[in-house]
């Protein structure tokens, strides 16, 4: 894969990578920084990606996740996690588009653990296979299904309690 092809593919991955980074960092601006840093890192050394080892998507998401964890280690987040993870940067028009269902989902996601959020986003939003998720979050492939199931059950419980 040449740099131009890589750039094109990375552009399509930007939104998903931002969603993942946002779930880890809890702030849309920090998430944008993490994605931009990851772009710079990957495009600065495009040879580090080996196409024989798998698709670009999970590999790039792992780069983004590692960058987010680096940023997290440098600063501990402050404030209420639910407040942090609900994006307040959206304009009124965007907010209207997002709708109540998405808002409820975001709030519910904010109330489960960071590990659980990541695995749900990787599977349900970014459509990664279990093997790819295992690669991104660096766990044994056999543990992905049980972790994902626990995360979904936790999310479902939160959404049900919101509805009541």
């Amino acid at each position, binding site marked *: 894969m040449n740099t131009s092809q890589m750039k094109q593919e990375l552009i399509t991955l930007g939104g998903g990578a931002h969603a993942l980074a946002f779930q880890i960092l809890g702030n849309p601006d920090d998430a944008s920084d993490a994605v931009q840093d990851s772009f710079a890192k990957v*495009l600065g050394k495009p040879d580090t990606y080996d196409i024989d080892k798998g698709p670009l998507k999970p590999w790039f998401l792992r780069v983004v996740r590692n960058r987010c*964890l680096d940023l997290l280690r440098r600063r501990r987040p402050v404030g209420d996690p639910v407040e942090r993870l609900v994006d307040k940067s959206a304009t009124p028009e965007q907010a209207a588009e997002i709708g109540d269902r998405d808002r409820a989902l975001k709030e519910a996601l904010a109330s489960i653990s960071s590990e659980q959020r990541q695995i749900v*986003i990787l599977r349900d939003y970014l459509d990664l296979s279990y093997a790819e998720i295992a690669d991104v979050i660096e766990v044994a492939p056999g543990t992905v*299904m049980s972790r994902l199931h626990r995360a979904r059950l936790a999310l479902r419980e939160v959404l049900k309690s919101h509805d009541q």
Partner: protein
Amino acid sequence: MTSEKRKNNGHVAELLSGYVDGELTQQQQQRVDVHCADCGQCRNDLVELSALRDNIGKAGFSGFNQDVWREMMNDTTVNTTRGIGWLLLIGGVLIAMGIGVVGFLFGSSTGIGEKLLVSVIYGGLALLFFSVLRQRLIERKTDKYKDVEI
């Protein structure tokens, strides 16, 4: 519900997510099918998990479109200026240190014994600094507890 049924129910429950995602083997899928035919609770779970998955898939988690990422990717100014900034800073510090060391060793009227003593002290401090720096860098790369939230 018998204990055997509860046990099976527990096992299938964990397979429900795999079923929804199409990640089960044929044998596991059949096991879920057989179980769900007889278990309303798991059938209900299956429907709810599937709906949850669909809703997350359709949600707008990132407000940025591809143009924003294209622009961001092509904006190399930040990285270039940051790189040049670091280069100038490190270069400047090294040159200043070099001038200071040369001036102290060859230009000052201090006695050779005092020069030796000061060199040993500063040399020791420098070694300690690089030793700690090296250790921190190694820890940063290999810390297996780095993801642990406190």
